[in-house]
């Protein structure tokens, strides 16, 4: 269940008055809160204990209704694409509760924890204690496992120490959202994982923050931060995976001068495994230092220390300059270099053995990326006209597996799919609902974007033109054993009717950037218009028109496989505020995708696709007294005419409602 807070919740404490109020004025405190307040009061009465005034707390209840005209049960549109779980589905309603405790230990030390109930249970579960997880659901009230037991889990914990030493501002120990680096190196963790990453960070500054520094060590997430989305666990190449010694390290330096800022970031991830040639290692090949014939192995000696090898290392360096020294001009330059080193003894080749689904090339790589962005505000005396220009080059073998996986956007362009563009193959379009944005990998993208926007009150106009060449263009690229193609690399991606296994023929995987033969070029043109009608109760009318021309010569030695697509759609949205608390919206979208040689293969040939899609939706938002309710219901009709395969028709009606209260 993903939902987004409006900003990071205050974590610091010291608000003595607030905590006292919290315990003193809740008329009907929950058991948990009452217990905490009671414990705090008892603690306060003990001479050697902290005062109750030293902690603050915050709570949140979030409820989601999700419904669709199918028979899936669950409250998350897109769950885990790899491991089966029993909480994903399109029909259900569930709630979750969160409690944060923030404590001031002393003048220099504070701490906070976040407790949260597990999502997954639907109201119809009535009572599930999560005691047992049977193979099939039953009426025992303990058949669905802990995910349906609504247990409260310790999700985050942190200690912050701020000693009064020069050039040292803070030491942070524990949970982190990794927002201190950048999306190109170690990226901010996606919202649903915001406290799952743990580390130690030290930061300081000098000269009234003219320079700032930060260094951190981060426990490498064993579930996804490595080749094959693992740091060893589950890799068939390993008999005794070691993950508890895997760390990432990051540093950041900022130099803040008048109108110009320099930022350097350096990160490296180190995934270690046991060297099984060491006789001290678990599962050692020669524990007695004798070979298979019983002869002693030269140099082999037990010393009660285990040697380690690096299964995978990934090092990224970025340099950024932000210049604001010219009136109404902003310039930003970013350069990045990344190295990726795989020890093939310890990494199964997922490109060859996992159908091309693997988050990096299966080889050592070194590559760079660059982005130059200029923003001109009202240039040449043009009132209320602004221009944004961007050049981008993302190296075809630029590997940053710990980069931002979603909820970030490194390019100005609207992209091929709406949402965001990210410089990694480790993009995560998962644990999200149908109304949330998708993200695409921009590895190999090379081109530029120009955006002109004008504010001609009451009309706003914005036009984007982007041209994308591809540094990944090549003939005979090895996608069988080196470069992952994510199995489905053809056709425009349908993110409205998306599915992981591609049983719906939804087009290219958003991570698929490599093909055996590619000569691709793309242009993206987008026009946004907005009209604010004060005379009609502040009705806001927005229209978006988007056109993508996408061509790929594929095999340069033949013409009959050339891909050519004209992707166009228009979207109209009406938004009307009704009083102070209510906003309603109404919209529609019509898509036409004409794709020549959209799908197929070299031997069987390719077939054309003509796709039309109609989407109509209504939204509602009600903000009242601290509660926020949001609702969307949409109908999607899609017709996919396929030259060789049977045509497909989709009629989808689905809705999502959320209610959030925080206190």
């Amino acid at each position, binding site marked *: 269940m993903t939902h987004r807070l409006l900003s990071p919740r205050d974590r*610091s404490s010291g608000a003595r008055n607030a905590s006292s109020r919290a315990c003193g004025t809740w008329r009907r405190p929950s058991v948990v809160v009452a217990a905490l307040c009671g414990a705090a009061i008892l603690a306060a009465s003990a001479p050697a204990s902290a005062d109750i005034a030293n902690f603050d707390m915050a709570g949140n209840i979030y409820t989601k209704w999700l419904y669709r005209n199918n028979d899936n049960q669950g409250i998350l549109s897109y769950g885990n694409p790899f491991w089966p779980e029993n909480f994903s589905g399109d029909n259900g309603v569930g709630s979750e509760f969160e409690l944060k405790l923030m404590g001031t230990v002393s003048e220099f030390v504070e701490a906070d924890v976040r407790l949260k109930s597990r999502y997954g249970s639907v109201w119809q579960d009535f009572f599930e204690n999560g005691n047992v997880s049977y193979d099939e659901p039953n009426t025992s009230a303990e058949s669905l496992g802990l995910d349906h037991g609504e247990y409260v889990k310790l999700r985050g914990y942190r200690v912050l120490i*701020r000693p009064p030493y020069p050039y040292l501002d803070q030491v942070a120990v524990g949970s982190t959202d990794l927002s201190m680096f950048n999306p190109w190196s170690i990226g901010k963790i996606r919202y649903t994982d915001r406290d799952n990453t743990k580390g130690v960070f030290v930061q300081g500054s000098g000269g009234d923050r003219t320079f700032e520094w930060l260094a951190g060590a981060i426990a490498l997430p064993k579930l996804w931060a490595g080749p094959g989305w693992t740091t060893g666990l589950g890799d068939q190449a390993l008999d005794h995976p070691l993950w508890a010694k895997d760390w990432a390290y990051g540093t950041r330096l900022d130099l803040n001068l008048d109108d110009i*800022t320099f930022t350097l970031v350096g990160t490296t991830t180190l995934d270690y495994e046991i060297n099984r040639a060491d006789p001290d290692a678990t599962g050692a090949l020669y524990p007695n230092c004798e070979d298979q014939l019983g002869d002693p192995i030269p140099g082999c000696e037990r010393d009660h220390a285990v040697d380690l090898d690096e299964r995978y290392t990934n090092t990224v360096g970025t340099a950024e300059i932000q210049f604001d020294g010219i009136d109404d001009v902003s310039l930003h330059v970013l350069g990045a270099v990344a190295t990726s080193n795989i020890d093939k003894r310890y990494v199964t080749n997922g490109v060859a053995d996992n159908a091309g689904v693997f988050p990096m090339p299966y080889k050592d790589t070194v590559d760079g990326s660059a982005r130059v962005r200029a923003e001109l505000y009202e240039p040449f005396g043009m009132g209320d006209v602004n221009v944004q220009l961007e050049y981008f080059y993302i190296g075809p073998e630029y590997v940053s597996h710990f980069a931002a996986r979603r909820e970030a956007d490194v390019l100005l362009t609207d992209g091929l799919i709406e949402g965001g563009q990210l410089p990694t193959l480790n993009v995560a379009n998962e644990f999200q609902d149908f109304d949330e944005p998708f993200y695409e990998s921009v590895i190999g993208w090379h081109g530029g974007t120009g955006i002109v926007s004008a504010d001609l009150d009451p009309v706003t106009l914005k036009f984007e033109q982007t041209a994308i060449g591809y540094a990944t263009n090549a003939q005979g690229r090895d996608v069988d054993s080196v470069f992952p193609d994510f199995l489905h690399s053809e056709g425009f991606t349908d993110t409205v009717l998306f599915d992981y296994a591609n049983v719906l023929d939804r087009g290219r995987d958003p991570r698929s950037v490599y093909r055996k033969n590619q000569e691709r070029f793309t242009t993206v043109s987008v026009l946004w218009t907005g009209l604010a009608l004060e005379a009609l109760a502040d009705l806001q009318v927005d229209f978006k028109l988007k056109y993508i021309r996408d061509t790929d010569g594929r095999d340069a030695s033949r013409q009959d496989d050339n891909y050519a697509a004209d992707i166009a759609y228009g979207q109209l949205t009406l938004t009307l505020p009704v009083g102070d608390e209510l906003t309603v919206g109404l919209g529609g979208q019509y898509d036409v995708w004409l794709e020549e040689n959209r799908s197929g293969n070299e031997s069987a040939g390719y077939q054309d696709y003509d796709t039309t899609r109609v989407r109509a939706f209504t939204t509602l938002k009600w903000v009242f007294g601290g509660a926020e309710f949001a609702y969307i219901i949409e109908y999607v009709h899609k017709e996919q005419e396929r030259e060789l395969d049977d045509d497909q028709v989709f009629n989808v009606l689905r809705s999502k409602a959320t209610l959030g209260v925080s206190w």
Partner: protein
Amino acid sequence: MNAKVSTAVLLALLFAAGTAVAGELEFKDPSGDDKGHGKLVYPTDKAYQKGSFDLVGVTIDASGGDVEVTVEFASKVEDPWDSKSWGGHGFSLQFVQLYIDQDHKAGSGHGSALPGMNVDFAETARWEKVLLISPQPNSRLKSEIGQKAKAQGKDIVLPKKVKVRGKKIVATFKASEVGTWAKGWGVQALVQSNEGYPTKEDLLSRKVNEYEGEHRFGGGNDFDCDSHVIDMLAGAGKGEAGEAKAQYTALGGFTCDASGKGARAKIDMVYPQ
């Protein structure tokens, strides 16, 4: 406002209408004074870049059918919390409140700034209107105002449009809600930080504590007796060095006793000549 005060405001407005000001009003503020009463320090999270709350200029253009307010900071206005995803306006950190004294008369108008700023205005500098420049959508602002500032609600003006231009935030307000700009009006811009989860009393502003936290300002007091303004206009609003000291003095004029009781700082408006 009582009837007497309302009448005074009305007369002032009528008078003001007769001496309407055309063109731009420009105010400057010295850089490096984003320390509130002189001792405030930024939160420690990397999102709060140096200069993020350092006000260096305010421009008010009331020449058209709308009132356009441009607020400039010392560093580029960033959006680390992806405000567009929650209906915002392309920035995340800043929250500016532009107070307007339309009559410059003692006892006329609201005496206290909005909840969370913890400052009062001098008797002759009470305000009739406040214009909010926040990354939050108007629906959220209205909800918060309804809960926390009902008494001032009718005099709080929300923007019809907000946009970011490098180091500037430009907000457009309906002239019909602000009034016809006139000579003699006073202006004060108070800079705070947008807090999506404010405490029960604060109107979307960030706490100031004795010690800075990851998302809280430091250098203040754990109680609510101290000023929570990070930067503001001072003196003649010309950006002269002495204006920083004037700001520190004005915002430092609060008193706090051990139980958190005390008197709030009183600040003035800037009245352009």
